[in-house]
């Protein structure tokens, strides 16, 4: 019990460290990079005119939506909303990483080291402090993996459902989130042939979890796609990787 409290304290300290580092970075070096200007402008338009005019190109809507809602309902500038969201979500990455490492190794020491590495990893600090889609994508992806690791360990269908929710949000932030769906099916095949459960049981578990993942992931992203179907300039699709975001030189005329 005491040991558990100690570990929780350590974890809280790591999260606090993570939060402090990110906050300091935002306050001392508040950079708006070139992509940020686009997102800020899109959020601005969304808050004033709605999604129809705001979304352009292949950019998924989740991040711009968050910025726009912050401006619309909290009356904060998109830049400020982006910083707040980035710092808060970024500070939670060590928690997700702790969870993944603990599920994997069943060892608090390793899980704490992994969490500490995530708290001070320079790129993760950078992504959390810029007005970029990565600020939402990376934490969502980490949470999805945390739920996946937990689901594999506990064989919980509920955790697979949460995994699918987080993957859907990640894919609605950056299309790369979609790459995790095939990973799930590769794992399911592996599990089907290597699990020590009876064939019927493992088949039932994998079929049910696969159905839930497909239903939730595609259901959520499809609903969002439909709700944004009137967006004039939006070419975003959560299922079509052939329409990868064009590179910098091609996007600009």
């Amino acid at each position: 019990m005491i040991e558990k409290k100690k570990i929780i304290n350590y974890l809280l300290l790591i999260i606090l460290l993570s939060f402090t580092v990110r906050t300091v970075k935002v306050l001392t070096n508040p950079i708006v990079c070139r992509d940020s200007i686009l997102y800020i402008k899109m959020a601005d338009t969304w808050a004033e005119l709605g999604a129809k005019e705001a979304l352009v190109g292949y950019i998924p809507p989740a991040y711009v939506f968050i910025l726009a809602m912050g401006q619309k309902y909290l009356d904060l500038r998109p830049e400020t909303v982006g910083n707040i969201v980035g710092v808060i979500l970024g500070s939670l990455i060590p928690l997700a990483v702790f969870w993944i490492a603990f599920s994997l190794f069943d060892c608090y020491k390793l899980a704490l080291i992994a969490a500490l590495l995530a708290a001070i990893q320079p790129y993760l600090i950078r992504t959390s402090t810029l007005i970029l889609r990565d600020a939402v994508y990376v934490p969502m992806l980490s949470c999805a993996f945390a739920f996946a690791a937990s689901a594999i360990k506990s064989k919980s269908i509920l955790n697979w459902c949460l995994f699918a929710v987080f993957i859907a949000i990640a894919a609605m932030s950056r299309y790369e989130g979609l790459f995790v769906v095939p990973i799930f099916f590769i794992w399911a095949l592996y599990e089907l042939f290597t699990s020590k459960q009876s064939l019927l049981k493992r088949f039932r578990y994998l079929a049910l979890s696969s159905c839930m993942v497909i239903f939730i992931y595609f259901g959520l992203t499809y609903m969002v796609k439909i709700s944004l179907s009137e967006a004039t300039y939006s070419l975003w699709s959560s299922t079509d990787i052939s329409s990868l975001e064009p590179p910098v030189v091609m996007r600009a005329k």
Partner: protein
Amino acid sequence: MSTVSINNWLELINVSIFSGIFWLTLLLFVISVFYLRKFRYNKSILFFLLISVFIFYLEPFYIMYKTVSYNDRYFYSMIPLMVVIGAPAVLFLAEKLQFFSNKYSMLTKWTKGKYSLIIVLVAILAICLGFSLSQRSEIEKNFIFEPIEIINSITKETRTRPIYIYEEDCDQGRVPYYIDAIQSNVVEKADVSPDHILKMCKALSFLDRNIFIYIRMPDSEFRSKYVGLEKDFKLKLLKEVIYKRHGRRSVFSLYQYEQ
């Protein structure tokens, strides 16, 4: 058939070095977990994570194949998973080298038997990291160099970033779909008029911050090139700066947009 530019190749080299760090971390992980059986692990979760790491590792190459453009940011999707794999590698190294017990023990042991292998790995890792960082700065100096530091020191404005906007976008009265500061220098390539610059400043005014413009020519040349702009020229010259680029002496003029 598309071609890959020198810039892409250099980025690819940079990414390959990043890959080197990735492979070494993975190697340490494999040694500590599988070879020395130092840590217990859940086989099924490990499979899931390793598949994920490999898919995210391969993804940038797929993107490069599809688009002939490279952005090493794509790699960063796997960083949360890398730190999970990095944790046993770190602990393993720390314990084996006895960093925490006796500061001299590492020195006495590092030439013996299996420790020498670890030392070699760490040395390679450090070299890769250092080389990667130096490469990155070289690339930035030569190919994506923008005088950000100079501008920042003049304007005392930490938020300053060079921004280029394409003329078509400005003509439509909206902020462009993409603002590129790296791969293309529009001010040099397109014959950008002061009118265009003013449109671009106006389009950016929603940002509610100072807007600085730099033009790769002396102020006198810029003004002489565009006769008759005095009336609407809302750019205040802050400074003319001489700097070296690719060993050649260049001049740029830094202006502030007066809103």
